């Protein structure tokens, strides 16, 4: 058992691999500012990983008919259609305060979209540093790979479903007709063959970038600075911080609005942060139950 929360610089070694002998941690940097919503990532993922369809239904809410990540959807392109705030006039003035304070400035798309601001983002499993799905899995089906990613072994999973409510992002799910849990593997098979994961390979705009996590983090910092220089103050990174509630994500994002606008939790915390407290309270409650038993007998006889 490794550490359960907080900063962790070598998650792979923490999982039991020899420090210095395992490959560097791999991940995705999804830069949503250049996403065009083509869904090539969704298609490439389905094709490569042989993921079954999960119904051909129209959501009626936007161009997004995939709706959410799930057992048979390992990449999901969100389409946010946000009406521009009618009372806000963009004077083009430089922003004040931290990013986020300027969230009504609506710098996403000013060109002939009839007052609608478009945001597109390809969501994926975050391959958390502290992965709740992995820690709660009772069978050991979920494991940490040598690349620092989190993968389900379908031959071990018994479909208990504990990983499903454990994930703070709502990524992993049970496949109903199959009974077992599935999610993005960050193309474990392709990684082993020194190949780029299918989604990143297929992305025509390099919105999805694959590589060593340390390098991706540097690249993301540069990109945010660049966007801020261009006046896109709303650009912010999500999941990049090793100090955050899950110890940083292996797959992180550059967003142009608050996370919840894209269906992401604004401040996720891995459930196991409170595990010690949970077990202590369970222990205290068990002792209390023994006390009740003793009191029940020690009370008046019959």
């Amino acid at each position, binding site marked *: 058992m490794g550490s359960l929360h907080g900063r962790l610089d070598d998650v792979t070694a923490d999982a039991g691999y020899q420090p210095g002998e395992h490959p560097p941690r791999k991940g995705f940097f999804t830069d949503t500012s250049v996403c065009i919503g083509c869904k090539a990532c969704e298609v490439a993922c389905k094709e490569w990983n042989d993921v079954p369809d999960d119904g051909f239904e129209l959501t009626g809410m936007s161009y997004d008919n995939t709706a959410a990540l799930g057992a048979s959807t390992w990449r999901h392109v969100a389409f946010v259609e946000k009406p521009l705030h009618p009372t806000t006039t963009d004077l083009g003035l430089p922003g004040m305060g931290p990013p986020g304070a300027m969230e009504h400035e609506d710098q996403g798309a000013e060109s002939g979209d009839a007052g609608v601001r478009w945001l597109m983002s390809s969501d994926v499993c975050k391959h958390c540093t502290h992965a709740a799905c992995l820690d709660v899995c009772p069978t050991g089906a979920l494991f940490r790979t040598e690349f620092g990613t989190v993968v389900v072994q379908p031959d071990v999973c018994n479909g208990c479903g504990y990983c499903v409510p454990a994930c703070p*992002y709502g*990524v992993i799910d049970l496949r109903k007709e199959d009974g077992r849990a599935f999610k993005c593997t960050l193309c474990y098979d392709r990684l082993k063959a020194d190949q780029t994961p299918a989604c990143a390979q297929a992305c025509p705009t390099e919105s999805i970038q694959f590589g060593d996590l340390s390098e991706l983090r540097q690249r993301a910092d540069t990109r945010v600075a660049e966007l801020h220089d261009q006046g896109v103050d709303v650009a912010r990174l999500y999941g990049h911080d090793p100090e955050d509630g899950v110890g940083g994500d292996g797959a992180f994002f550059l967003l142009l609005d608050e996370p919840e606008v894209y269906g992401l939790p604004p401040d996720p915390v891995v459930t196991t942060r409170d595990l010690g407290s949970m077990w202590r309270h369970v222990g205290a409650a068990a002792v209390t*139950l023994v006390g009740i038993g003793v*009191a*029940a007998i020690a009370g008046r006889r019959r």
Partner: protein
Amino acid sequence: MTQTARTGGGRGEQSMVPEAEFESYYGRQIIKTPTWKTPDVPLYLFLGGMAGASAVLAEGAALQGNDRLEHAARWVAAAGAGAGTVALVHDLGRPERFLNMLRVLKPTSPLSVGSFVLAPFSALSSAAVASQVTGRLPLLGRLAGVGAAAFGPPLATYTAALLANTAVPAWHEAHRELPFVFAGSGATAAGGMAMLLTPPSAAGPARRMAVAGAALELAASESIKRQGLVAEPYREGRPGRLMRVASRMTAGAAVLSLVAGRSRLASSLCGATFVTASVLTRFGVFEAGIASAKDPKYVVVPQRERLARRTAG
């Protein structure tokens, strides 16, 4: 702010109370709804609690030489564990792989720890009953009963960690109180079932266990319900109704058994009410979690508040 937070929609929608809004992706939920089935899992929570507390009661009765109570409680412990195991296996997506639960022991997974509590508890409580029924190996049977009584309290309470160790807001945020709700609810069910199965003259310890359990459960439930927004599912809608009815039944049965516990009819009535209330409590807690998973409000608003506090402090 939190009480008027609206579900769904962006800021562009007609704003009635702008400061009360939160944003979401077309009002869709963020975390997944637990796939655990109803009634399998809430029923298991009840059965495990009742069985665990019954094993304690049985050992207490054995110490007192109260044979009728001992026999009844041993049966409840073994049958509860057996039925609970069936419910758990039935809930699996791949039931034929249930033995994979014992493949590794992971302290980070309450389900793994629980499997290593349930398995020996089932074996020991069954052995105790088998010895009692056949009259064979009485010493070993009694030892098995002692073992079951040792595994009983953890069996009755670990399920609180099982629910709490998730991202489900109503379960996770109640992680300090839930173990006490479950310990109390288990004692109530075990005491109540024994009151149903034994004459009042032998059911004294069962009565006292049920009443003490009721007090613990009511106090712990009340302190959950007082938490702000995250406890809302315990107060509203169907889970809220289940919790309210359960509390009233528990309190009513506790009072009645204190005043009229020695009457056969009243004792049976109280026992049945205690058991039913324990079932309803488990369904209430379970469904409150489901409700909190389905509404992005319970994920976004508390996390936003946490972020705001961090930025301010």
